[in-house]
């Protein structure tokens, strides 16, 4: 068995085995994520927490209140980002497309900025807060509102537009506009709101509480199910819109389904975890190389599992087990994730199986 990656490829090439193996890794990392943390909870204590035995109350609280929701969020958020990245890459036939390319996260950040920065002495936020429009709503709700506002805009315009390259440009333009609004809000906000806003942009799985978890899980699971239903049309899209249409696919319907699904998944994750970058663009490539396929029947489940794996791994690293420190999640996803993806992709091209989009 040579350690040059080809053995790995052979193993994973047998799709079912690969999927099962990665499910196993996902489970192991989930356990690792709830076991490891800045506070060292010994294994026997963890066992008694789970079995309801006698244990230090602090540890039980840390475990149930912080670690479990965090780990569950990481799995689902990672999966959703990877999936929406896959959908966008296939839809736009662009290897650089990511979940945010439609301008969804930019819309979310405008929502968040309006809520967070409204306490300053700027006009817009204060006026909205005064009207009770955005004053007391939670950050996640504001983010979702912003994301769906952008989605609505994109859907309205794209109904009149044939080419999806135009939609791509449209999304990027929306991002610029949103960015401009946030910049203006930042300009007129006080330092404290500015700090809070920048913390939000760091991204984190730790912010989700048990109260919020059901909504997050429900919306994301719905997104996963729709993605599974879309595998056939997605495969057809790989051969081009015209071919897909000639196969009897209702292109408009599929287009809208893909966009709404992506927006829901990316919007929900951004709302609860902040704008987490990198995962969405990298995991689909990683999966294509690993499973040596462009078939969405494989890629959709693969992205769900591998997305969860990468999210859990980055979460574990960002908490630097054994230390008191936490690093911003967004720094970790790119810092540790990018080299791995580069490695996989470069190996892929050497064997003539480059990134397929």
């Amino acid at each position, binding site marked *: 068995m040579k350690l040059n990656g080809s053995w790995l490829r052979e193993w994973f090439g047998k799709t079912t085995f690969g999927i099962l193996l990665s499910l196993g890794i996902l489970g192991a990392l989930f356990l690792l994520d709830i076991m490891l943390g800045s506070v060292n909870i010994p294994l026997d204590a963890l066992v008694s927490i789970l079995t309801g035995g006698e244990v230090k109350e602090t540890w039980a609280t*840390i475990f149930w*209140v912080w670690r479990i929701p965090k780990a569950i969020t990481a799995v689902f958020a990672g999966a959703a980002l990877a999936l929406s990245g896959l959908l966008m890459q296939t839809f736009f036939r662009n290897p650089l497309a990511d979940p945010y390319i439609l301008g969804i996260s930019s819309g979310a950040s405008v929502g968040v900025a309006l809520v967070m920065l409204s306490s300053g002495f700027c006009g817009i936020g204060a006026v909205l807060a005064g009207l009770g429009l955005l004053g007391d709503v939670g950050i996640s709700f504001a983010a979702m509102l912003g994301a769906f506002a952008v989605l609505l805009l994109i859907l309205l315009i794209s109904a009149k537009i044939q080419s999806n390259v135009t939609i791509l440009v449209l999304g990027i333009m929306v991002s610029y506009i949103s960015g401009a609004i946030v910049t203006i809000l*930042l300009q007129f906000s006080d330092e404290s709101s500015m700090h*809070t806003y920048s*913390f939000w942009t*760091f991204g984190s799985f730790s912010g989700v509480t048990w109260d919020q978890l059901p909504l997050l899980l429900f919306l994301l699971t719905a997104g996963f199910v729709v993605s599974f239903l879309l595998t056939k049309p997605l495969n057809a899209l790989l051969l081009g819109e015209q071919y897909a249409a000639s196969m009897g696919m209702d292109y408009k319907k599929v287009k809208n389904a893909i966009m709404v699904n992506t927006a829901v998944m990316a919007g929900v994750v951004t709302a609860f975890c902040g704008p987490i970058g990198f995962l969405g663009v990298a995991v689909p490539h990683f999966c294509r190389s690993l499973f040596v396929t462009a078939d969405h029947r494989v890629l959709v489940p693969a992205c769900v599992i591998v997305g969860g794996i990468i999210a859990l791994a980055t979460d574990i690293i960002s908490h630097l087990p054994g230390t008191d*420190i*936490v690093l911003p999640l967004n720094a970790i996803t790119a810092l540790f994730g990018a080299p791995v993806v580069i490695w996989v992709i470069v190996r892929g091209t050497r064997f003539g199986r480059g990134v397929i989009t």
Partner: protein
Amino acid sequence: MIAVVIVAAAAIWLSAMVADDNGNGSPIRAQKNSSGTEDLFLYKSYPEYALGFSIEYYGTYKVLSLHDPWGRADEDYTYLLVQRGEEIPAGYSDAQVFFVPIEKSVTLSPIHLSQISQLDESRSVKGHNGVDLVYDEEIRRLAEEGAIEEIGSGTSSMGTMLNTELIIELEPDVVFCVANGNREYDSHYKLREAGLKPVVSAEWMENNPLGRAEWIKFIAYFYNREQKANDFFEGIKENYSAISAKTKTLDYQPRVFSGIDYQGTWYAPGGGSYVAMLFQDAGADYALSNDNERADSPIDVEVVYERAHDADYWINIGYNDDINALLALDPRYANFGAFKSGNIYHYNARVNAFGGNDYWQSGILRPDIVLKDLVSILHPELVPDHELYYYQHVGSPHGGAA
């Protein structure tokens, strides 16, 4: 013997007269020093706690050195403060020259205004960045009269936007800026490019509450107000040590924690910070003092919970106003013992309509009152007559102001 007393009394009377003169900002020509040259600066003031600056006096001028708190050698500045009407000494080619006492100033941080106001020089301020955020009543009145113009966007970090043209028009002798670890956010390069004379202050990087207050001397050098600064600071120092002396003999030190969590990361002052020192001097056991980081250090929320879940008090809740804001941010705060008992205090008793908080303004100059507030919270029996000034109780569920 009697003659000696009379002479001494006369000397004191004379120096008092001179001091009055000095107060009016006119140069003094009273004494000759040992080497025969004139010494125009009768009152000298040296930093005792502050580490960020040092001063040397030379007859007709003073050399004020700023030590960059981030250790960047090219950000150490020398300010040459020459008495008005005197010649600029040779040999200081790198230094920025100011003729003192300065007459017109522009300030970028409200801390400067608190310092200047304490030195009775508010009238010298012609422009300020963020007039709305100023708590000081005299300054606000001057601004309403139009004597102080708004010259910026109010923030003093990332987003500082200054109306440089307006500042140039005001022709200030000095623009007081705040040091920033990131050159990009430091306005003083831009100002210097525009031909203005920026002076950088860094009181917020001092790790000793008295060191922070002592920066009033830094501002005083520019106004020849050393005597006032000394008197003021000595008073603060005495008050501070008198209060902290009371807490030294206590057997019981309540456990205190501080800061807030944002999405799993807790931002709290480190064990070497001025906040930790205030807690210690107030007779508290700071639960998060393990690390010696001086600034806010990001800690995992798990660690904070393990160390502070049974702490008695939660003091300083970041950017939140009260318990309701905390719950809206994260309902898991309710797991902390101090939250359940409602022992939460925050320094937001004096906040103006625009969000300007006096704790960050006059509070920097009055660590003695801040300390007294903390002692009053933790050991009320030690300061029975004290009413909270900067701090208030924010631990009750329906608005903390009650």
